Each structure stands twice: as structure tokens, then as C-alpha cells.
């Protein structure tokens, strides 16, 4: 029997008043569930387009590993995989031995800080000399081929390098640099080291070779397929919805409940798009990743299926280290700009050694073969350079120390001639002390860039 036949308008109105909100709510939930299924399927399709089936089913199985290697002709990029067991053990021992030196260095650093607090004189130089002498003895037995695999704390070598430069032992300082390769090179320390005169041209050219490596095109040298794999493979179970990441939230540290596919799909799209960005570290790359970030947030917020998450709408922190973020690009930009600073500082000192004085402008560095404008777009921090006469040193530098935060010797601090100032990178300024005493320059002739 059709009940509606027995209703009048008033009945229908009140029934509608009561039923409509309930039906709308149920409809909303049904729509959210539908979107959940649909986006889950979309994620699966996307992943199937990237990874072989064996990898998707069991990413940690041997078959998956073989399938990946075959598909992308992967070679082990972990350097330690190429070493024999014996060499690996030897490298481990060396790393641990160096770590023991680091403990001693850390202790001396703390004593130096105590000396400042107590306002007492404390010269740690003999102790540092002893530590680094023993470290050098240890490393003398390490072949150059093995040395590149040592992953001991770069900060230990950086501190060692700075110590040798302070003591004026430039040759030893170059030996220390040679233990570090690529991104571990302490480029800021190298840049500051150029402020101190006494280098020979040969030494400068050696450092130039050690520091000068191609700009950050590492991203481009990796095939796009591989880049996508690297960024997504390690998070595969999360994208598939098989696991939940811990997310930092004041009320809930972890959730055993599934994360909505809108969230996973938005992050997946962001990761894939981020892997396509070239020239990582350039201003444009940072702009692009910011746009991707915004688009990702909008996609997540507009996802209806997030209503079905438990317990919160926000289920993931986009700034987790697991995900590619702006910080990664900014860090790369800083690294590149520091490298550029170091390369420029080396070129300036080299120019002075070859031509007898610092350049008036950075463009003059091209006369010694240094292209200042190379890779400029890659670093977002601009460099600036100026020359100023020695009698304006106090005005330009002030009473602050120069070089490695230690006082220059009075002889160097009062050296006459033209000084140089190179600024930029990530908040670093290098003041170049002239190599030899010169005539007193005119007092009001500072050269500006």
C-alpha cells in the first residue's frame, strides 16, 4: 500500500523536513565512500604504470629486487656494496678509530667554551696538534682508493682543516681536504681559508680541483624513471594504503586507521612532479616545489573522502622528512651557493697571486678562466664583492675578527694594500687580506661592485 497516497501537503512537508537532512548526510557519506574507492583505484593504476607487478606485490622480496634491477638496469649506487668484506671491515675500523679522535676534539671544544665563560686563557693548539698528528698517522695507511669510502663525520675533517689553516700549514690543510669528496667538502671553511694570505699558486690550484665539481645536475643525470622510483619506492606501502605513517599531532601520535586516498594520491602526485623538477637548488626549482606544495594541500582539503578518516581531517604532516619538501630544495640551494662562494673565493685569491692584486670586479675573474656567471641561476643567494683600502679596514670590517673567528696576527691585520670583501652564500662574508705589503693606497678610493 502506498503510504504517500494518504498524505497531504502538510504531511509531506514535515516528512521532508525530517528525512531530507538525513538523506543528504547519508548521500554525502556515500559520495565520500565512492571517492575513496575511485581514488584508491587511481593510485593503483599510477603505481602499476611505474613499478613492475612483482615489486608491487612484495616489494621486499628478492624477485622484486631483481625485477627492478632488470627493468632499469640499476647498478649498485651504494659504494660500500662494491667493496669486499675485508675492505669493508677495514673501512669500519678506520671510521671507528676516527670517531675516537672526534670524542677528544669535542672535549677540547667544550674546554674552549669553558675558557670563554671563565674569561681565562686556554690554548688548545698543542692538544689539537697531537690529535691530528695521530689521525694523520692512522690515515697514512689508508689507500686513496679506500679513503673515498670513509664516511666518518665530515665535521671532524672540517675542524682539522681549519686548524691547519690557522697554523699556516696550508699543505697539510690540502691533505685533509683530499680525504673528503663531493658534498662533504667543507666549502665554507675553504672560502674563509682564502681570506688568509700565504697560499702558493700551486696550492690554490690543487684546492680548486678538489672543490670544483659540476653544478647540481645530479638530478638530471638520473633517468626520470629512476628518480620516480627512488622517491616513491621507499614509501610504497604507505601509498598503497597498507600502512600509516606516524604523524606528529598534539593529541594523536599514530593512527591505526586508514588514510584517505585523496591524501595519498595528492602526495603521490607531488612526489612524482617533484622528481621531474630539474636544476634542483635554483630559484625556479624552489618556486615550483612551493606551487606543488600548495596544490597538494588544496587537493587534500578538497577531498571528500577525508571526512571518513579517523580521527582527524589532517592525517599527515606534509613536512615529514619522508616527503620531498621545499626544505630539501632550499638546502640544496644553500649548498650550491656555498660552493659557488668557495669557488669564487678561490678564484679571487688565485687572481691576486697571478696578477698581484685583487680584481676590481668579479667579471675580471674571467681573465684567469673563472666564469662567474656559470651556474648563477642555480644558487639563490647572490654574491657581492668590493675592494677597499687597508686604512678603511676598521670601517669595513670593524673590530670583529677575520677568518676563522680568531684574531689575525697583528702583522696581517695591519697589512697595507687593497683588501677584498666577498659576501653572499648562506650568510658568509670573506675578507681577503693582501698577500704582500704594498704601498699605501689613496684613502678615499674604495672600489665598488
Amino acid at each position, binding site marked *: 500500500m502506498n503510504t504517500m497516497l*494518504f*498524505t*497531504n501537503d*502538510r*504531511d509531506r512537508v*514535515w*516528512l521532508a*523536513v525530517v528525512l*531530507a*537532512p*538525513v538523506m543528504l*548526510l547519508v548521500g*554525502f*557519506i556515500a559520495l565520500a565512500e565512492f571517492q575513496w574507492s575511485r581514488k584508491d583505484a587511481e593510485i593503483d593504476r599510477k603505481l602499476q604504470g611505474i613499478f613492475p607487478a612483482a615489486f608491487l606485490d612484495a616489494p*621486499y*622480496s628478492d624477485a622484486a629486487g631483481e625485477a627492478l634491477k632488470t627493468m632499469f638496469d640499476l647498478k649498485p649506487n651504494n659504494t660500500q656494496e662494491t667493496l669486499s*668484506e*675485508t675492505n*669493508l*671491515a677495514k673501512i*669500519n*675500523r*678506520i671510521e*671507528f*678509530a676516527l*670517531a*675516537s679522535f672526534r*670524542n*677528544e676534539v669535542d*672535549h677540547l671544544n667544550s*674546554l674552549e667554551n*669553558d675558557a670563554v665563560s*671563565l674569561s*681565562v*686563557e*686556554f690554548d*688548545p693548539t698543542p*692538544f689539537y696538534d697531537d690529535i691530528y698528528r695521530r689521525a694523520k*698517522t*692512522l690515515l*697514512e*695507511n689508508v689507500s686513496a682508493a679506500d679513503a673515498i669510502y670513509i664516511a666518518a663525520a665530515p665535521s671532524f675533517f672540517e675542524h682539522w682543516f681549519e686548524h691547519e689553516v690557522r697554523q699556516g700549514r696550508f699543505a697539510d690543510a690540502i691533505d685533509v681536504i683530499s680525504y673528503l669528496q663531493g658534498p662533504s667538502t667543507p666549502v665554507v671553511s675553504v672560502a674563509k681559508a682564502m681570506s688568509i694570505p700565504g697560499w702558493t699558486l700551486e696550492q690554490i690550484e690543487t684546492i680548486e680541483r678538489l672543490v670544483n665539481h659540476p653544478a647540481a645536475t645530479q638530478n638530471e643525470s638520473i633517468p626520470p624513471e629512476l628518480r620516480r622510483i627512488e622517491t616513491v619506492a621507499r614509501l610504497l606501502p604507505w601509498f598503497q594504503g597498507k600502512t600509516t605513517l606516524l604523524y606528529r*599531532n*598534539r*593529541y*594523536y601520535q*599514530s593512527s*591505526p586507521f586508514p588514510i584517505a586516498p585523496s591524501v595519498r594520491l595528492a602526495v603521490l602526485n607531488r612526489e612524482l612532479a617533484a622528481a621531474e623538477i630539474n636544476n634542483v637548488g635554483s630559484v625556479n626549482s624552489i618556486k615550483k616545489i612551493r606551487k606543488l606544495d600548495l596544490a597538494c*594541500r588544496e587537493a*587534500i*582539503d578538497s577531498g*571528500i573522502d*577525508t*571526512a*571518513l578518516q*579517523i*580521527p*582527524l*581531517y*589532517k592525517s599527515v604532516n606534509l613536512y615529514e622528512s619522508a616527503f620531498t619538501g621545499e626544505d630539501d630544495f632550499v638546502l640544496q640551494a644553500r649548498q650550491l651557493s656555498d660552493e659557488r662562494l668557495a669557488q669564487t673565493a678561490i678564484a679571487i685569491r688565485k687572481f691576486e697571486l697571478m696578477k698581484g692584486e685583487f680584481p676590481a670586479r668579479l667579471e675580471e675573474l674571467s681573465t684567469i678562466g673563472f666564469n662567474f656567471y656559470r651556474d648563477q641561476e642555480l644558487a639563490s643567494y647572490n654574491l657581492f664583492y668590493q675592494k677597499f683600502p687597508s686604512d678603511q679596514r676598521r670601517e669595513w670590517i670593524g673590530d670583529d675578527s677575520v677568518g676563522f673567528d680568531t684574531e689575525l696576527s697583528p702583522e696581517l691585520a695591519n697589512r697595507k694594500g687593497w683588501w677584498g670583501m666577498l659576501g653572499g652564500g648562506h650568510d658568509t662574508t670573506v675578507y681577503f687580506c693582501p698577500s704582500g705589503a704594498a704601498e699605501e693606497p689613496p684613502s678615499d678610493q674604495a672600489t665598488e661592485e
Partner: protein
Amino acid sequence: MATQVTTAEATIRTNHEPSSTAWFWWKESRQLAPLLVMLVAVAFLALFFDLIGSSLWNFQVPHEALLLAIPGLFATGAGPLLVGQERSTRTIEWLTLLPVSPSRLAITKLLVSLVGLVVIWMFSLLLLAVTGDGSSKWSTLNPNDLLYDQQSILVWLIHSLFVLLVGFYVSWRIENQFYALLLLIGIAFSPFIAVSVTSGLLSRALLAKESGILSLIFTAIGVAVMFPLSLRAAARTLGAKPAPSLNGFEVSRSSVAAATVPEFNTQTAPVIWQSFHSAKGTWMVISVMLLVGCLGTMSTPEFGVDILSNNWLPLFVLLFAVATSWIGVCVFKHDGAAERLRFLADRGVSWKRTYLALHGFPIAMVSTLLLLFALFNLKIDHFNYDAASGMPSLLTMMFFVVTAYSVSQWASQIFRTLILSVIIAPILAWTTVGWLSSAIAMCGVPVWCVVVCALTPMLASFVMMKHYMDGRDRPWTFAVGAAAVAIIIGLPIFTMYRRIQAIPGMTPSQRTALLNEARKARSQNLRSVFVALSYSGRYSDQTMLLNAEQLIDSAKSYRYEPQVIVAPLTTQSGEPVRPAYCDSAFQFWYENFSLSQLTWESNPETWPDYAVFLDSSVTLLRSLRADHHYWSQEYADRLEIMLLDALSQEAIRAKRDSETVQKVVRSIGTPQSRAKARREAVLAQWAEAVMDPDDPSAFNFYGYFPENASGLAAWAEPRVDEAIVLALLDGIEAAKTHSASTGWLHDLHELITPTIPFEESQYGPAWRKQPVLQILTYQSRFAPGMFMGRDWEYVDPNALLVNESTVSPNADEQE
């Protein structure tokens, strides 16, 4: 003559006015008793949940706020109950006909409620004295707390009296009980508003003491004002009323009113219409409360951060919570609801249809609320660091609202009076929400269980609907209610119990046998010595450095001296080995050992230094193996690996006949000796935890327990520990026999590292293929038993010294 008649009449009237109103006292006491009993029950219920909260989750309710709020609730409800009940049962007119003066009636009601207030105050204070102040964070009674205020208890007392008088006043003045209650809440805050105004006039914040004194003064003034006002209101209500005058306008108005009664064709729609129409004002008030609560909460930037850091946020949330609960109360408790239901029952209207119809409008309101919430969340950015980042999802909000609604509508069916429902329902509803939320968030209760518990009150009210309509729901409603409470509390507890029982612990016989074995092993053990594997040197406490000489001295003396570290372990020949346990600074030992080893290999003249290190390592190894802390065995494994690696180097073969190297060879254990030491250590440490569970240094293998079930950790830990012990014993046995079984690895993975896939865990094949030397000092991926059963255990140290093609301890399971 007239005088005599007057005197006789006065005598007759005087003789007829009862000298005692004891029967009235009894009547009023009976009327007030349910409120008293319910509040006592609420107090015990709150303490019960406090007990659960503190034992499960180390969360305590501030007893003072809880127990001193009970008299406040009584004071709020007493007047509306005693007067409002008369109105709803139409007994006001009967009271006016009694040969008792209105003032005496009013004063009797007041006195009865006053006695009730005293009783509830005594109860609360007694309970507070017995249970302590719970969380002292909020305490105004604890002299050590910042909120301590000597006048606070007096202010509470006087304020409750003030609220009681206001309750009577508004109830006598206003017919609608709901509006009366709202007005009461508003006036109740007036003394504190006056204090704030005073502070504003003085243009400065008041000290706690000043605020307390002013509160006391304003409240006392309030009492003095409200007392005569309430009596006057009572007199007006109970006194003779002027006869109503009929005029044409009123007649026509009533006719018009009669003519506009809507007509319906169905039985359901009019019930829906009636439930809305009869309480339009109530729905309006609830809607405003919801609107203010929601908008206020959304606009507060600190939402989701620290709810107490914002003064207004608790108020907005409270408004929303109470309004949601009152939606449920309005199902069975709008004006005239009982009579209407009786009317429908007498006319044979289906009770099921009535039930659905009564829920129609409230559920529509709840659905609208949730829908608006869902649509609102489509528009906001959940990644800003403000309110939106902590926004509960639609499902979560639905759970909160539906549970509160479900319990509230059930409470409104159980309690006869509106006032009781309005006061008690929000407390019961949100206590239930809190209980179920905690159950799912901290005790791992499954979603289906929580949903069943949330809907149980709906089922209970549905089951009782027929009897309720017939007015014959007592005493069955209490039986059904008890069953519902049993389900809401018992079902989650049952699932928690099942969850804990599902952990594979020991059987009783296993436990007994292993404990006996542990006791026997412990009885043979000497007292352990603690060894710190850190750098030695003077001025290890750098706060003692005061001058340059001391700095230099500290620099010179900062050395790693293994012989100094193990000095307490040295024994004479024939003496038993001294057991030792160490700190977690093993990486210092290995770093300096490596340095010593490499230094000697490049400069053979440094052999004496290296020999000291080898010798000290042997001493340390023996003492760690003899110790009954399990972690000592783990460090002993690492030391053996380190020494085996040293023996495998070609350079040491030249020294193979030296006493030092022979000592090293003899110190290397066999699979059998290691198994014995490990087994004793595992059992001894576990037994210590069983016998002294409060000892923080006892057995702790950091067995994993999911964070959403962390509330059960206290109960689950013993079973998890037992399961880990069994798995470790299996692993020890497998290592001893060089078995290829991996069941114990899977078991340990499930118990300790289940959050990552087995293939990636420290027990998985990939990790176990890594050279042991490479992972020797890894702290962050430390997992018990990760070195057990690997190939280093089966290396013959003598063979390392003599055999050219040796098996390095680093070589391991290869493909």
C-alpha cells in the same frame, strides 16, 4: 455579637491550619530524593572513571572541581525540581487550596532543599577528604598550588546557597521549566560578573585574595536580595489569583487559534509537528547555543592546541556539548510530552511509529549539524597551525554527537522530570563519550564495539517505548537501563580482556618451571659491579672547572684507559669472576679498541698498549658473561665479535703464542657456554620483574604495544614479556644447535618491531646478512637477540690464528 463570631471564626480557622507540616516535609523530601540520589551516583561514577583513568592512562580528574560541582548541580536543580514538578503535574492549584499559608509552603520547600544542600555538601566534603585532591593542578585547596585560595571553599558554600535561592525565584516566576533553568544559569554567574566589572572599574586585575573576598561579598549580597524575592514570587504564585476577564478579543483569539490547528492525514507527521511546535522556543535556544558554540570554537585560533590556554574556548565547547545533549533530551521531555504520549497510547497509535516520529526532528537537526560541519571542512585549510589542523573528521564528530544524543534521549526517557534530565543527561552523555573515546584511542577497542555501545541506549529506549507510552515502564526501565550500562561498560572491557589474552604468554606450568629455574640461577650469582665505559679523567664534571690550570689538566687527563675502567673487575687467581653490567657507551670501547688495533698494526712497537686493551677486553667479557642482566649478554656478544675480528687479522698471528692472545682465545665462548649464560640472564632478569614489578630497572625489552592500546600496557606488559622470554629462549636454543629455524626471529619481530615489514627489520634476512662489524655499535636499531645464531658464533678462534684461509667473523649467511 460580631466580635464573638469573629473570635469564633478566627479560632476555627486557627484550629484548622495545621500546626505541623511534617507531611509536607515528607512530600518535598520524596520529591527531592531522586536528585540527591542521582547526584550521589554521578559522583561515584565520576570517581570510578577517575580510577580507571589514573590506573590506565595516568590521567586524574581534579577531585575538587568534580566533587564541589556536585552541590552546585544540586542547588541548580532543587528549586526547579520542587516548583517545576508542581507545575508539570498541575499541583500548584492544589497547593493553593491547602490550609497552609503560601509563605509557609515556600519556606518549607526552601528548608527541605536547604537540608538537602547541607547533606550533599557533607557528602562531597567527606568524599574529598577520603579521596584526596586528585590532580593538584587545579586545586584551590592545596596550599602548595598556585590557585590556592583560602576563601574559595566559603565562596563555593555561599554561592551554592545563592544558586538555590535563584532557582526557587526563577521557578516561581517562570512557568516554562527550561526557560527558568536558562535564566537561573545566567543569574548564577552574576556575582562573578560583578567581580569582573569591579576589576574593570579599577582598571587592574585583582589579586586572588581580593577576587575571593569580592566574590564572597557579592554572593552574600545576592543571597540577601534573592531570599525575599523568592518568597515574594512564591506568594504571588501560590496566592489567590484575580478572576480572568473575558473580552471579545480573547474569545475571538481562542476561536482563531482553534481554527488554525493543522490537519494531517498520517499519524507520524503530526507527532513530528507537535514535537517541534510545542518547544519552538527550546529549539531556538538550542540552535543559538549550537551556533555560538560552533562559531566561537572555529574562530578560536588555539583550538586543538591547549584547550585551557584560551579563556573562552572551554565555554564555547561546553555550549556545544550541552546543546547537543539537550537535543536528545527534547525527544521525550518537551512540554506536555508525557500527556501527549499517553493520549496517543490511548488512541492506539503504534508505539514504533511514535518512537520514530519523536526522533524525527531531533535527528534531522543532528544530521543538519553534521552536514554543515562536513561542508565547512571542505572549505578550510587543514594545514594551517590553528584550529583547523586539529579538526575531528566527520566520522569522529558523528560518533561524538550520536553517542551524546543516544545517551541523552535515553536519560530523558528514564528521568521523570525535565530538570533532572536537563542536568543529568549532559553529564552522562559526555562521560560516555569520554569513556568510549578513551576505549578506542587508548585501549584498542575495535570500532564495531564502540558503535554497539553508542547505539545501545537507542535500543534500550526503543525496547521500553511501549511501556513508557502506557506509563508502566517502572521498574522495567531500570532493569533495561542496568543492562545497557553493563553493555556500555562491560563490552569494551571484554574486548580489552580478549586482546590481552590473545598475546601468547606462558602456560602456568611453564611459568612455574621457568621461575624455579631462574631462582636457582640467581641464588648462585654474586653481586654485580657497575662499569661505566666512558672516558676517564679528572674533572668529568665540567662544572668543577674554575681556572686555566684545571682546564689544561682536564685536557691532559682526557684519555680512554680500559685498564682503569675494568679495575674493579680484576680478581686474584682462583677467585670467581665478578659479574658486571655496563652503561650503553659501548661504542667508546670499540672506537678506542679500533684505534689501538690500527695503531699497533702500523707501529708494532705499540704492542704493549694494544695488549692492555686486549687484556681489558677479556676481563670485561668474562664479567659480562657472568652477569645476570640480559643486556650484559648483548654487550658480551659484541665484545666477542670484536675480539674474533682482532684474531682474524693477519698481523696478530705473529703474536699467537703470547699470553695475551692466548687469553683472548680462551675467553671466546662456545655456542653451549653462551647459551647457558644467555638463558640464565634472560630468566633471572624476567624473574626479577615478576617478583618486583615496580622496579624500573627490571626486565624491559621494549616489547611493542600499539600506541592506541597504550592504556592496556600495564596489563599486557607481563604477557608481552613472557612472550619475548619464550622467543628468546627459542633463539638461544637455535643458536646453540646452529639450527636453521627462523620461527623465533618472526616471533621477536612481531613482539618488538612489528611496525616495519619483517624483511626490513633487524630480524629479517637483509639485516642478518649485513656484516656484524658494520652494525656492532648501532644504537638506534638495537634489538635483543639480533646477533644470536649468526656465523660468528661458530668460528673457532684457534683456527683464525693458524689457518691461512680463515672464516672471518664478518662472513655470514650468504646467498
